[in-house]
């Protein structure tokens, strides 16, 4: 016959084990939820410390094969490189949405934009951007053209654009669009006019 006080102690221990188990499960669930939120591909909103101003975006539409001009109100930093990055990230936000007219891979982002000699912008894409981009002449051309046209429309002093991936030169975006070349913004703009 097991003494009564041992039975009570055993029951209390069992209850304690179960309650700790439930607590652990709830912690695990909470951790999973927070991880899911942190990998959400939607880019963070631009900084709001500055006053919002109109930004021209050239948004690609795959089904029509055109670039459409759109205006968005965005708070822009004062320095040109940061400004350029914010503008491009606003464009990417359009492409990262579920109903995007020109979808790009989740997690695509602009690492940075550097200005060289005031006229040459070096856009550094993250590797996810290039690695997950759909392969095809037309798909890649629309992406490159829309980025360059958007930059040029908002920062007219940008005359040339060079695209890097994770700080390195890469032959093509996804097998077709040339990333070795330095793009002449005026040539791209002429093409974009024809594509509207």
């Amino acid at each position, binding site marked *: 016959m097991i003494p009564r006080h041992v039975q009570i102690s055993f029951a209390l221990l069992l209850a304690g084990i179960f309650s700790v188990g439930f607590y652990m499960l709830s912690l695990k669930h909470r951790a999973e939820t927070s991880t899911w939120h942190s990998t959400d591909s939607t880019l963070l909103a631009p900084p709001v410390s500055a006053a919002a101003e109109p930004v021209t975006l050239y948004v690609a539409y795959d089904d029509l094969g055109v670039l459409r001009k759109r205006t968005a109100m965005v708070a822009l930093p004062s320095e040109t490189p940061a400004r350029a990055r914010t503008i491009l990230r606003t464009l990417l936000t359009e492409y990262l949405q579920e109903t995007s007219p020109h979808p790009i891979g989740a997690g695509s982002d602009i690492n940075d934009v550097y200005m060289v000699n005031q006229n040459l912008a070096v856009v550094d894409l993250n590797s996810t951007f290039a690695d997950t981009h759909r392969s095809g*002449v037309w798909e890649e051309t629309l992406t490159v053209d829309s980025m360059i046209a958007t930059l040029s429309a908002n920062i007219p002093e940008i005359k040339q654009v060079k695209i890097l991936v994770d700080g390195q030169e890469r032959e093509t975006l996804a*097998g*077709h669009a040339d990333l070795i070349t330095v793009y002449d913004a005026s040539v791209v703009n002429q093409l974009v006019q024809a594509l509207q």
Partner: protein
Amino acid sequence: MRWNKEALLQRQFRITGIAVAVSLCFLVARPAEDKQLTIITPQSSFSVLLQEREGKEYIDLQNILDQLGHTSATIEGDNFKLRYDRLEAHFKSGQTSGKVGNASVQLAGKFLLENDHGLVPFASLVELLPHFTGGHAEYHEISRRLFVNGGGTRFSAELKKGTPSTLALSFTASVNPRITSEGGKLRLSFSHDPLATTAQNLKYDDPLITSLHYSENENGGEMVIEASEPLLASFSDKGKTIVLSAAPKLATATSSAETQTASGTPAANSTAATESNPNLSSTTSSGSAVLGEPSVPHTRYLIVIDPSHGGSERGAALSEKLAEKDITLAIARRLRAELNDRGLVTFMIRDSDSTISLDQRAAVTNTSRAAVYVAIHAGTLGHGVRVYTSMLPETAPAPGTFLPWETAQSGYVHNSRILAYSVIDQITKNQSKLPVAMMPAPVRPLNNIAGAAIAIEVAPQNGDAESLTNSNYQQMVANSLAAAIVSVRSSLEQPR
């Protein structure tokens, strides 16, 4: 008076003569060349001047040690005290011995003190320097290079036997040699790369690559690889590896008329030869330069057909099972047949599932001096056929042999557009309802092609990606392309 005039003329003539002679002397007499020594350490390389004193070559010791660490010098009368990091060295002007730390050193000549600088005989430097740096020094007399503490690039060569064999050259650091070829002899000149090897001779029992000879010269080092055929050099691993393989040969398929005129061989035999060697025009490499002339005589109107992608590079995923590389090859084969039927000479960049870099595609096209380059792509976006030309601005064809690689297409943009318009016309004639478009686009490697160059992207006929496999559709595209290439022949054909 007359005598005076003649005397004056004679005098002026003499003065002019002397002036011309003096000028010629100045022009002919070249200044004595400053001798330099290049010092290569694992961290850096730098050059120092050698100075001639008392018939011997001398060198400023402190000048060298300054590049390797922290130095300071004190001069008291004839005594020269040099501190290098924590080490102290003592020399006396006019003496042939000195002390570095606790070690006594013998010099090959007198120690000289000049303008607060201590000069040591150059012949003693190889023995003297390790006393300071703690490592070892190796002097290469021919190239006047001193390798300190294991500095410099080393290489190894490995022949991988096969059909054909390849020779892999592995370097311990990135190299950028100047490459020239004469027939089967490939010369790599390492004037900017500090190769630490003095000489190496390797013989290979191989039908393609027979020997490798490396030797030093006054400009650096030179490697000569002898082979029975022209070789192709492919760079990889950020310039640390060079793979030498047989340069691709042009697989020709000609019409009976052209074949008989060119070589007297019946057309049927020629075509059969091409079909029986499906891998003849394919190589595997990345980041390359094509060397050596292709083994087929140049023709004035050679068409290069590039079935884009291939091998590990699948291109766009057109459907779950359908890869772009397969569709491009199918259309390219049809185009080749159509062009051959029309009596044109063609070359396929690949006729099998092989990986070929974009640079290699352009290099083969340029070395074959093609009049037309057609890259074939396939995509799922939209319908119909899109024809792309380079985005480079149109310029007049550049005179001379050399063109900048990145803008080689500039002088040919006009011809490329003529060809693109013709393709659009022909497709519209064949299938008026099929959407067609023409535009400049940044498609690699159009910018690198020195000739009329277009890329076509074949999209589904009706929205279904499977329609890309439709033989009638592929045939219509091939037929239109071939008709367009024939129709612009008179505009594009020119002596090259």
